[in-house]
């Protein structure tokens, strides 16, 4: 396989995952803004912080309003991770790796591109927002589903999976990075039951409220939420789960190329030193520092994979 193809597959699935996360985030924030009595437009600043776009947003807008933030996240032409730009990137990557993906995956990408471009041609009204967000979910699911059901489990597949899970790790970490203070012992002492709507935002953003309740019961503490989002290997958006998937793919790639790579070593390091711990150790390390450290490690791992598999010249 070409290095450029591996890179294209990796980015295709990163952007696809990013689309899904952006849609979830908007959905969760919209839900919170409609159900909370004291909701203000400035809560949307926190959404911008989560996706790391607050500064860019402020260069284009004078104030943070719900309508402006949503429009920027969906259609902002100069915001590289806006939904419409991500969809374009998915389609462009799909085109450039056209020979590596199946016809089914390509047609799902192309149909999604046509559909979302039509829906995002003009500003999305609040009454159409949930329809649009379901379309995004459907488009992403169809592409991922087609990939799952039609692609061979060869090297190509591993790069798709690596892209998905590197991006997912990044998204979960960003969410924690912005919201970590809610979960600090000073705000909610260890052992106390959380009585803060903020955690709900977090769990809704990862579509995991139901899963959390299933795993930990109806009421849960801050350490339980961290355990769930960071260490729980059954939870498909947790850091542990994502790293496990990345490591599996790296191992399969190393078997097919009969060589060990630096990225395997890096992934193992993260798994052994940061994710094979008790949740208490994370609080001891400092939640904020932990999240920062893992953001760095995740991006280093991503760079190492690009180097090991010759993504670029």
């Amino acid at each position, binding site marked *: *396989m*070409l*290095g*450029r*193809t*591996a890179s294209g597959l990796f980015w295709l699935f990163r952007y696809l995952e990013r689309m899904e996360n952006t849609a979830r985030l908007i959905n969760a924030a919209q839900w919170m803004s409609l159900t909370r009595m004291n909701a203000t437009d400035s809560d949307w600043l926190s959404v911008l912080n989560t996706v790391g776009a607050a500064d860019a947003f402020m260069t284009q807008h004078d104030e943070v309003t719900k309508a402006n933030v949503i429009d920027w996240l969906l259609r902002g032409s100069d915001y590289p991770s806006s939904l419409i730009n991500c969809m374009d990137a998915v389609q*462009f990557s799909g*085109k*450039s790796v*056209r*020979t590596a993906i199946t*016809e089914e995956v*390509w*047609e799902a990408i*192309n*149909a999604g591109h*046509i559909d979302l471009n039509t829906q995002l041609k003009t500003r999305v009204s609040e009454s159409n927002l949930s329809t649009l967000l379901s379309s995004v979910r459907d488009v992403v699911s169809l592409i991922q589903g087609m990939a799952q059901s039609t692609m061979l489990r060869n*090297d190509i597949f591993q790069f798709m999976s690596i892209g998905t899970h590197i991006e997912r790790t990044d998204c979960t970490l960003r969410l924690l990075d912005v919201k970590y203070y809610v979960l600090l012992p000073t705000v909610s002492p260890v052992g106390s039951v959380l009585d803060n709507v903020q955690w709900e935002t977090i769990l809704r953003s990862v579509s995991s409220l139901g899963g959390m309740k299933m795993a930990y019961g109806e009421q849960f503490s801050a350490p339980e939420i961290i355990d769930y989002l960071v260490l729980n290997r059954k939870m498909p958006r947790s850091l542990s789960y994502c790293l496990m998937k990345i490591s599996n793919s790296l191992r399969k*790639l190393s078997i097919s*190329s009969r*060589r060990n790579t630096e990225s395997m070593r890096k992934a193992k390091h993260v798994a052994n030193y940061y994710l094979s711990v008790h949740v208490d150790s994370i609080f001891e390390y400092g939640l904020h520092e932990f999240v920062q450290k893992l953001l760095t490690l995740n991006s280093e791992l991503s760079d190492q994979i690009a180097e090991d*598999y*010759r993504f670029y*010249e």
Partner: protein
Amino acid sequence: MRQKFSTGPLFNEMESRSGNIRACYKAFFKWFSGESLSAIRKKQKEAQEIFRLSGITFISDNSKQEHKKTDLIPFDFVPRIITSTEWSHVDSGIRQRTGAINAFLFDVYHDQEIFKEKKIPLELIARNPAFLDKMIGLSPPGNIYTHIVGSDIIRTDPKTYYVLEDNARTPSGASYMLENREAMINLFPELFSRIKVKPVQDYTANLLRTLAESAPHKKSKVVVCILTPGPFNSAYYEHAFLADQMGIELVEGSDLKVRDGRVHVRTINGFTPIDVIYRRIDDDYLDPLNFNSDSLLGVPGLFDVYRAGRISIANAPGTGIADDKSIYSYMPEIIKFYTGEAPILDNVPTWRCSEVESLNYVLNNMDSLVVKEVHGSGGYGMLIGPNSTKLMRKDFSERLKAKPDKYIAQPVLPLSTVPIFGGRGLTPRHVDLRPFSLMSPKGISVTPGGLTRVALKKGSLVVNSSQGGGTKDTWILEG
């Protein structure tokens, strides 16, 4: 050259002037007459959906950069049907022509006998940008220059075909030929069980075999790649399609690197050598060290490896000299010179404006001629006399007088018509045909059929997709 060109009544390939359906269309017509219009309209819609989803598009770039848009090439389901007897004439004509073009190229870049014997004036290549100095004396692997040729052919009556243009650089359109057939089989399976049509689907297998047989060595394992300018190119869909069908890598210039005297491709596990490049980029952009140094599309040092005989490039660099419009008018002489035979397929009579007598004729008869730029393509930079205004003709006269050797002129051709489905029924439109021939050291083969292009506008003679043309499936009947 100056013979009178028949501009008699138009030839409708389905229906004679007395209203009889020609034999080869009878089965189709019977089927069509039994279908309801609404069912057909539904199928036509389905066909559009198939093509829309597959992403089969071209980018029309006749406008400014910011207005570039991606369009679907319209597909009309009414097949263009040709009998096997009619086809065998075309087939042998194309083989003859492809062989002659290849022999001409070898001669042009070696002994130049055809010029020494004064069959063609030497100035034609001396001043021609398509002539590549660097190819002089260089023999490509197996002496093959034109691995793939797609000549444009028009028909004026049941027995008469003319070659309008030879495409010997990197002809495109084969993917449409294959996709059109696949769509037809999916939409109208019952037609294919009633009517036996020669298959086209082995084109890609033949293409891969042709490329492998043209490798610079005789080893059994040959690595073949398609070299594309990338996803922004208007024919990118085709490049990806062909790579996918052949199961070979679609590479861009940045994926290739010259190392230790061979061309290597960058894979996830390091650099591996390749043997054959089916390039879909122009000569100029192949190698920034040897040609256009601004090119970011090519591979530095590629041509040095080629010169050393360690890579095959299909089609060979420098083939453009053979499909140049100024050379075109000499094709009958070229065919006679290298094959010793008369051309099986005729040339369209052509006035070379570089000759004073011809120029005068063209200037005086512009309203009945098609005037073309020698180096133009895609239907741009041409004047169709009968459809032109006085002002346009005046403008062209001035251009002609200023640079006569940049222009040729041809009569307006009575292109045959084939019906299209117009929503309420069948209605005739002008067509041409681009068959594809493949040439390796082991011989020449022509895929039965090709790409039929159709002018969708009533009365229009321009079939180019960039000018509102569409395509059709082309059926060569068995037996």
